[in-house]
């Protein structure tokens, strides 16, 4: 258990540094790129003085380091700040005349908390679809790397990886939702609204998982202990169930930590936008369009934290499966 403790202490402190660095990069980039958030808040009709007044009130004209320091102080108290644009009621008020000051604006944390469950549901279903499809296919392909299943798996993953998710989304909406009317597509009024976007995510994930799983199963099958096990008197089925799958799960876990997190997040943003799905992705994309700095920063910090945590968990599980990783 000493290993787990020192591992967690080390990795969590490293993770904190990563989150701070990402936070600072996002924070400064937002302030360097063109587009004044105050102009978006007050609308094109407001005078230059009004803009400057509100900007000063929000602290946006202070030196960047001062602003970041203030942000970190807030952050340490669990406060991600308030949205520039979104009202507590949920309505956006960009350009509205009444929208001066932040008194009735929504808390960033509340905005994130209210959208995260939708995104988790989408991501969870997407991963579940992807695993249901790719684990049997990947293992079957890996066990017989020159067989027909391997060729089919290779073709499928090649096609999947080259399908643009935007195109596929629009096609599925057109065919399944509009023409066949099997599943709803736009917005969210119940669980069935998650299925179609989850399929889009699954297609993209499956392409990577099938390839990675089949090649790691093939590689483990080459290990001499697999054949040696059969000579020792164990059945090939036993060797596959107890040893091949166990060992090929480690590269799979690493794939989840290192790549799938990013891939999932990236495509989830696009998919949520296309389906107008009320998750974290849609919140972020709208915030980017509206230069809603606090929301963008909050999402960046929360997602970085989630990715860091996923990686820590993945490495901990890997070290539990293969003890050599503890050294």
């Amino acid at each position, binding site marked *: 258990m000493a290993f787990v403790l020192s591992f967690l202490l080390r990795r969590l402190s490293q993770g904190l540094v990563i989150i701070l660095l990402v936070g600072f990069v996002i924070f400064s980039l937002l302030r360097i790129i063109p587009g004044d958030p105050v102009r978006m808040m007050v609308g094109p009709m407001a005078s230059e003085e009004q803009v400057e007044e509100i900007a000063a009130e929000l602290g946006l004209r202070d030196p960047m380091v001062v602003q970041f320091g203030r942000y970190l102080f807030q952050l340490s108290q669990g406060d991600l700040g308030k949205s520039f644009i979104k009202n507590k009621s949920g309505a956006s008020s960009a350009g509205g005349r009444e929208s001066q000051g932040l008194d009735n604006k929504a808390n960033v944390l509340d905005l994130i908390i209210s959208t995260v469950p939708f995104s988790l549901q989408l991501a969870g279903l997407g991963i579940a679809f992807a695993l249901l499809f790719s684990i049997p296919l990947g293992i079957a392909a890996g066990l017989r790397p020159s067989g027909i299943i391997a060729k089919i798996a290779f073709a499928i993953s090649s096609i999947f990886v080259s399908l643009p998710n935007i195109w596929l989304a629009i096609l599925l909406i057109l065919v399944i939702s509009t023409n066949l009317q099997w599943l709803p597509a736009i917005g969210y009024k119940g669980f069935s609204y998650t299925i179609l976007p989850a399929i889009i995510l699954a297609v993209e994930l499956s392409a990577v998982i099938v390839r990675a799983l089949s090649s790691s199963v093939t590689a483990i099958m080459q290990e001499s202990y697999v054949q040696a096990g059969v000579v020792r008197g164990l059945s090939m089925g036993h060797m596959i169930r107890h040893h091949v799958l*166990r060992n090929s799960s480690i590269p799979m876990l690493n794939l989840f930590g290192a790549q799938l997190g990013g891939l999932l997040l990236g495509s989830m943003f696009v998919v949520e936008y296309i389906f107008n799905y009320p998750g974290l992705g849609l919140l972020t994309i709208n915030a980017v369009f509206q230069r809603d700095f606090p929301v963008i920063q909050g999402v960046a910090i929360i997602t970085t934290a989630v990715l860091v945590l996923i990686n820590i968990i993945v490495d901990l599980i890997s070290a539990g499966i293969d003890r050599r990783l503890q050294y």
Partner: protein
Amino acid sequence: MAAAKTPLLSVRNLEVTAHLRRGDQNVLSNISFDLGAGEVLGVIGESGAGMTVLSRAIVNWLPAPLAVTRGEILFRGNNLLNMPEEDAAKLRGKEIAYIGSDPTTALDPTVPIGTHLTAKLMAVKPEMSKAEARQRIFDLFDAVRIPSPKARFNEFPFQFSGGMMQRVMIVDALSADPALLIADNITQPLDVTVAKQIVRLLNGLKEDFDTSIIFVSSSLPMAMDISQELLVLQQGKVLERATPQDLISNPQTDYTRRLIEQVPRIWEVDHTPPASVSQKPILSVQNASKTYHTKDPDKVFGTQAVQAVRGVSFDILEGENFGIVGESGCGKSTLSRLLSWIEAPDTGDIFFDGESISAMDAKGIKNLRRQFQLILQDPYTCLPAHKTITQIIGEPMVIHKLAAGKALKERVAEVMQEVGLPDDTGNKLPFQLSASQRQRVNIARAMVMKPRLLILDETLSSLDQLEQARLLELFDKLQKEHKFTYIFISHDLALVRRACSRIGVMYLGRMAEVAENEELFFEPRHPYSRAMLSAMPTLEKNRYDAATCLLDGEPPSPVNIPPGCSFRTRCPDAIDACGKVDPKVTLDGTTQVECHLFE
């Protein structure tokens, strides 16, 4: 068919073919032999004779492109080759067990040893309960003398040394009481003292288990130790079968005679090993030590101190051949890194020609490197793959700006000729050369700058006997011409016996003994030197009896070095003081020993 008359195993006209793109090639042809119940048959030959293919064929584990193309393998009268799969599955692991040469890759490293062994036992003996299987394995761990069996049962394969792992594989093979055990080169990767213990162990077990054994070995003395009869293979054919005594006294073929001649002789040698020529040390090691720190998963932020070299002192005299011998993990590779100053020692110092290397600046050390060169073991990985041989050999001259253009070319050509590389190799790439040619390239690269000291770290280990002899001749010739000093670092006692004037014996990071060649082999002082000699596989009568000189057990881990003398745990002569006080070096001219018996 009368059971009494049917041999346990009967191989009839076995032919194994490799289906290669350039055509079929026979790997085994017309092999026939019988093995009765309880018999031990040794199979010997040079590497490449087909010994492993034969043992793999019997357990039906021939890797592609190899396949049996003719013949029968009858086990209790039933042909293993055309038996229905369900019948074959009943024999595998239960009646016929196999142990291979590399125990470290035989088990899934992510699963504890005990789980592997009980799973196998319960698979081949479904009537056994889990508790019974565990008990059986504990008992067998005791029988093969694995210390603290209950704790080791839950440890993982990577936590076992090669020798302990081979014991585990023996337990795994014998747990189901097989009628036939195939031991395919099981001592090959092990150090001499450990290999000797394994053979001794198997010799004892064969009585208790009434198992027939096919003992495949490329070491004739090792196979003689355990076998009732020996089968000699050459290029996939059986040359002769005889009892060990008959085979030695009356070999029937030239090939067998050659096999016998190739067994190194330690004591009955007719050549005198080279003697030191000078009393002036060229390299002087003074109290050098090196500790590495690795992660310790049992402590929060803990590290383990691996004490690889623990304060060694010795001199290397100008013009001599100094040998450093020891078994795996004794610190000889770390010492070679210190000697060649790839790493600096933590404490102590090394003097070259009387000058302290640690006191030198980077430029001084770079200049000094022209004087001593390191030649490594593996001729495949230490040459850059995309440079021509001429470029490789000339590179040190370029780095040290010693020659360029025509002068460089001439020097490289000169060196290539000296080491016996044909002229046309100059424009080739390393992959086009044979192993021994590559090793010659290594030697040429090291001597192109005319160094004074060459450090040979297992340089000859990967080469066969004949090539070793040729290179030793070359070293000898070069030494006479250029007055080189050599340090031979090796695990091979026979090699240092042939090549070295003085020899240092390392054990667990210490220099246990430094002695003249004759003295070390005829009058060794340190008990470890004696133990190592007693474990040497030789055909001559060993001067030292393993039964009295060699204790069981393995070297302790360099992480947990026992207090007092570190060899005490394996020493048959240990006295009270050994457990408390670390012995000091006792010097006697150019020889030294670290042992309480000599203080």
